[in-house]
Structures are given as C-alpha cells and as structure tokens.
C-alpha cells in the first residue's frame, strides 16, 4: 500500500484589525504533518511579525465554532482568527 498522504490543507480567515495586519481576509495553508491552530497562527506570525503582538487578544474558530489553540487541524477545515468582537 502506498503511504497515506499527511498533507493538511486549511482555509484561513482574518477579521477586523487582524485582516488589516495580515493584509488580506482569506488565505489557504498547507501542512505536511499534524498541526494545531496554534502552529497555524505561528506560521502567519512569522510571515507578518506585527500579528504576533495580537496573540493574547485573538480567539480562533474552527468550522464556525470557537476552538482551543491546541485543536488539531483536519484537511478542509476553515480556521478564523478573530479579534475581540464589537457587534451590537
């Protein structure tokens, strides 16, 4: 049997001021091995250093549900990084 591909492809969304910092609202990311939401954020923080400053005031969602930072990613997931909400 051929080795099972480990490639994980996720959609990544940025909102509010995080969208301004990242410069775009939507991206897609690929991992060749298991990864968590935390690792996904670190990937973008490395690309956009200012993003790292917001880490403590960001929450993440996975498939439209708030998710812990150690949540493992699955291929096809939609992950969003959300600044403090201010609707209403």
């Amino acid at each position: 049997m051929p080795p099972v591909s480990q490639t994980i492809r996720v959609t990544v969304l940025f909102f509010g001021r995080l969208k301004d910092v990242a410069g775009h609202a939507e991206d897609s990311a690929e991992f060749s091995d298991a990864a968590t939401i935390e690792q996904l954020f670190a990937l973008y923080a490395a690309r956009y250093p200012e993003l790292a400053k917001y880490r403590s005031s960001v929450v993440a969602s996975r498939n439209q549900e708030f998710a812990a930072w150690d949540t493992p990613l699955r291929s096809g997931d939609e992950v969003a990084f959300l600044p403090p909400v201010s609707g209403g």
Partner: protein
Amino acid sequence: MVTLPHDDIYQLVREPIDMAAQIRLVRGPEDGAIVTFDGFVRNQSHNRATLYLDYEAYESMALAKMREIGLQIHEKYSIHRVAIVHRLGRLEIGETSVFIAVSAPHRAAAFDACRFAIDTLKRTVPIWKKECFEDGAVWADGELPPVPAATPRAKPAS
C-alpha cells in the same frame, strides 16, 4: 433539547431594519408581552465625535452564533418567539445596528431573555465595528469571546 421554532428570525442585513415588521412577526395570540432592544449609532465614542460606523461580520459563524443565542433563551426562559437582526456595512448616527424582539406570555421572561440575548451577542457573535472619526478610523474595543482552554481530543489518554 428544545427545537427552534421555525418562525424565529436570525438575519444579517445591509439595509435599514424594519423594527415594526419584526415586532409583528414575533407577536402571537397566546402572548402578552414583547420586549425589544434597539441598539443604534451614538454620535460620540470616548468623547470623540463619530462620523459613521462600519460593521463587518464573519457571516456564517455570526448567524450560527445568533441561532445559538436563540436556542439558549428558549431553553432558559418561557418565551414564544425571538427575532435577532444585525445590520452590516456603513451606518450613520442614529441608525439601528442591532434589533432584538422577544415575545412571551409574561413580561419577566421577555425582559430576561431580551437582555440575555443582547449581552451574549456582544460577547460571542463575530461582528466588528470600525469607528470613523474626522481624523481617522479605529476598530472599536471589544470583548474576547470565551473559548475552550484546551481540546480534550488533543490529549488522548496514553
């Protein structure tokens, strides 16, 4: 588990909200009380004159969270119907950004549910507003939604 009445209303809109229409829609003959919350654009923020606001949302998740609030208030309070409508895009001073209407046979449940709904919306629904002033625009301070601290599934027993 309560099933959501099909005639509850959860909407994100880009046009002015017709409040009278929402009130009519939640009104049932077995009810006696409707409490509404109308949140609209103030003319100032932190003592700076606001020109207008610009709202954006993570729309699919915002609607899911609005429905979740509806489910919660149906579970917690003896209410009949709920309408939760949030407007997006550019809003001028005095324009309604969020409107919530809750009908119930008795007023206490309607008050409690309406207040719970707006308090929860402001903490958990992914919507953001940018405040536009004469000398620039800033994202409004907001509230960080409560999120699970860690995922049990990520730590399987070894």
